[in-house]
């Protein structure tokens, strides 16, 4: 049963990733990305990472994908209904990518991984929370500062010029 679910999820993930790579419309690529994210969340569940699966849905689908769709809508003329997205250098890129895929999957299959035979499925939320507050506290804090910086930067960048000019005298006064 779990194997069947795994196969179905992998097919969903890879086929929609191919849509992202190949479709000639940005908006269809974004929809493909939605299904890739959902497939990957399913794969996380199968690898006993329930908290990560929910985070994947929350951050990628509810956050990043919404941002991407907004960017697609705002960065095109409304008259350009097809939102075309041409591709360049298709054949050489495809050859490189397929060769790389062959290499990587060959390495993955032939390597003798030091796999534990009996892997148990257990909830990970509590363990993750404890680790984030103890062993990984420093990276956690650094990442939160990074997020704050990104937030301020993005807000400043997307401000219209007129608003920025209005902001300037205040900033000089502050200095």
């Amino acid at each position: 049963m779990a194997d069947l679910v795994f196969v179905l999820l992998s097919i969903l993930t890879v086929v929609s990733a191919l849509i992202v790579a190949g479709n000639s419309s940005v908006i269809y690529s974004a929809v493909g990305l939605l299904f890739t994210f959902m497939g990957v969340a399913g794969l996380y569940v199968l690898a006993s990472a329930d908290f990560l699966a929910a985070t994947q849905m929350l951050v990628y689908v509810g956050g990043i994908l919404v941002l991407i769709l907004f960017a697609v809508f705002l960065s095109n003329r409304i008259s350009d209904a097809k939102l075309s997205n041409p591709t360049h250098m298709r054949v050489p890129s495809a050859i490189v990518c397929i060769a790389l895929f062959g290499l990587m999957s060959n390495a993955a299959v032939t390597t003798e991984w030091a796999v534990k035979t009996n892997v148990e499925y257990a909830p990970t939320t509590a363990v993750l929370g404890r680790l984030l507050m103890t062993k990984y506290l420093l990276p956690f804090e650094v990442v939160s500062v990074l997020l704050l910086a990104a937030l301020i930067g993005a807000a400043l960048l997307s401000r219209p010029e007129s608003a920025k000019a209005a902001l300037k005298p205040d900033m000089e006064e502050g200095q």
Partner: protein
Amino acid sequence: MSLDKFLVVSAALFCCGLYTIMTRRNGVALLMGVELILNAANINFVAFSHYLGKVMGGQIFAVFVIVIAAAEAAVALSIFLRLFATAGSVEVDTADSLKN
């Protein structure tokens, strides 16, 4: 369902992302390729963490990757919107005013 199957799926995802980045000129589409590659890396982290006997470091790393992907997407998209306002297009080739 075993470790190598997870790795093959993630390799396929990685190559799709790479292909997207190599062939597209649209900035937003490039960002989608980057997200695919980050997801492929995350599958690897989670799969190794699961099959090498509950090493939680893998999942912690995946959490950080997701957070950084969110920050990166926010900044990149606001840069593209600015680019669209100044150059009238999000094709990354149009941002060459420093060269000319």
